[in-house]
């Protein structure tokens, strides 16, 4: 079982794709595969309001940047995310952190 999880505060994910490229470079992943991939839903109108969300989904390549985290660094996608909306946290802290972020937040344990 992983020691860490990845929180995405997706209300702020702008769909900038930086995490995809940062991961590809970090892990040297070829172009026809991916380490983390952005998904998009919207724009559409729900209950009279716009709904448009991006969420990046880590793949089987993702080890939550084990070596970087152990070296005291941030994960590559977390470090490069322009919206600062990715955070790698210890698994036991996940729910407390998610409550802190409020709404439109999810987590992955790849």
């Amino acid at each position, binding site marked *: 079982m992983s020691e860490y999880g990845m929180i995405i505060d997706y*209300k*702020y994910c*702008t769909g*900038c794709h930086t995490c995809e490229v940062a991961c590809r470079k970090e892990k040297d992943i070829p172009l026809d595969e991916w380490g983390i991939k952005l998904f998009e839903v919207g*724009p*559409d109108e729900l209950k009279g309001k716009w709904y*448009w969300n*991006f969420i990046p989904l880590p793949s089987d390549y993702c080890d939550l940047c084990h070596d970087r985290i152990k070296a005291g660094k941030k994960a590559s996608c977390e470090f490069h995310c*322009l919206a600062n*909306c990715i955070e790698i946290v210890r698994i036991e802290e996940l729910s407390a952190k998610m409550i802190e972020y409020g709404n439109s937040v999810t987590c992955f344990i790849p």
Partner: protein
Amino acid sequence: MIRDRKDRGKNAWKQVTWEEALDLIEEKVNYIKENYGAEACFTIQGTGREVILYAPAYASAVLGTPIFTTALSGDSCYGPRCAVGDYQFGAGYPELDYAAFFPDRYDNPQYEVPKYILIWGKNPIYSSGDGFFGHAIIDLMKRGSKLIVVDPRVIWLATRADYHLQLRPSTDAAVALGLLNVVISEDLYDHDFVENWCFGFKDLAKRAAEYPPERVEEISWVPKETLIAAARAFATNAPSSVAWGLALDMQANGIQAGYAIMSLAAICGYIDVPGGITLTMPASFMGKWRYDTFGFLPDELKGKYIDDPSYGAHNAGSPQGHQSHPDLIVEMLETEKPWKLRMLWILGANFLSAQGAMPRRFYEAYSKLDFVVTQDVFMNPTAMALADVMLPLTMVGEHEGIALPHFGRNTHLLGAINKAVDEGDCKSDVEIMILAGKRLNPDLWPWDTPAEFFTSQIQTKYDWTFEDLQNDVIYQQEYVYKKYEKGLMRPDGKLGFNTPTGKVELKSTIYPGWGEDALPYFEEPLYGPNSSPMVMEEFPLILTTGGRNITFFHSEHRQIPSMREINPWPKVTIHPKTAAKYGIQNGDWVCIENPMGSFIQKAKVAKEVDPRVVHAEHGWWFPEQDAEVPNLFGAFKSNPNLCVPQKKIGKLGYGAPYKGIVCKIYKVDGLDG
């Protein structure tokens, strides 16, 4: 690389040494200058690249010509907004205060988070224009800022906004006047600031009264309830701010729109206050030098830049120095009047793919030149079509340089670009400028290295060196709020603003001298439901262009596999209802056509646009395709500028209809029709 003039358009380049290339440039330029005068040479620049800091100097101080220009019809990028800043406030570029001047940023005790940010004609998340860090909007949202977005598209920020004013493209001035109408008629403005620091309020109020919300709704499609609510939110939540964008420049009525927007911010009391709009003295800090080099020209050449006396704001030389007018340069090349232009130096511009309206006309006109030099990081359609010499440039990590947000017009920091890698036999724009300057105009080029040059520039204001900056990485300028109360907005030290009246000019004392209305007004775009109903019978959709793609900067980056993997093809966004009407499905190839021309992109069927509007991406060419003429990497296949007219510009010389034209659409089999 060099190529014989008769081989232009062919992949017939010959590799030579730097020495040989510079010898050739020296010989050709000197020959042309001796026989036809320096004014037969000119430079053309692209957009927000490092070379923008040096391009005017390549003309005035290297070639010794008064002619430097761009390819953008109506110089419709940045210049129009700078003109508003200049003539209305006597200052540089008015920018959203995102605490950029403070080392401790948002935590600085002087700083306040704007309550509302009015994001107008800008998608800063994807564009980060002119040194503004786009994702700062996210930082501010996390700290409590709310958004009002004015955009014909539902950009992602619009889905996060309290109010989205989804206007018909190029009706911005009407919407701005409508907001002014509400703020003034409901008495929501800052009386103290208006009485003490603004000129012409009563006249502005009279003008705004002509734009009640009902009329604005008819013109702009923005529901009057949304307009009224947004006006109230903006005016009654101090401090609030504005992030205004390129869309305002890319319409003939754009200066008027920008003028009205800044008047709105001014009467609400948001100018030069924490969390409002920052202003600094125009062309302050290092950005000034590039235009000052014009002063080195001999007197008989100074009057030989190309502009039209009727283009008042453009011609006044204030926002962009004596930049020659792009539309007139195309005509000059065609007619060879008042004289024949012979030599061109292209600086960071691929104008057949971006910038140039009617790019085929550009291709014909620019092909007439005797000698063309370009410098770039990659081969591109313009270089392949036109250049005789192509100088290979280093990328950002490969040279020493400086970064200067807003090019000196509102510059929160000076950054050092430090060389990290050294590969290939390339040089930077600055290195080439010094080398060529030493050969062509040695008196003006005493420096041997970029570092020496930068240090001498820095020391016009500070007592440290470029090496110091390299160690510190950035130097942040100080910022003082409410400078107009402290005598810091005028060179003479008097209180107020550096305008003829000493106040923020809500009614311009300058524009009437150029035959322009003193007050902002709305004018219908050239083509549209109210101005050309006949044309719209055949071309029933409004075409707006140029919204950014995060993976590309204008025509750049199409050859980078990890970027193309994300965005492989140019996309035209069509509302599902409209797509259904024309039998178009997501991913279909679509031809977009109007009386000027046509181009092909892939359909993105999405609700990002109104059913009456389609949006096409700009800057597309295909590095993987045949490089040679006539294909030129597919430069004329997907380029929306093929549908944009030349010289349909604003009265003051600024602004062209890149973002508001008309079209019809139909399905085709592929990129080749």
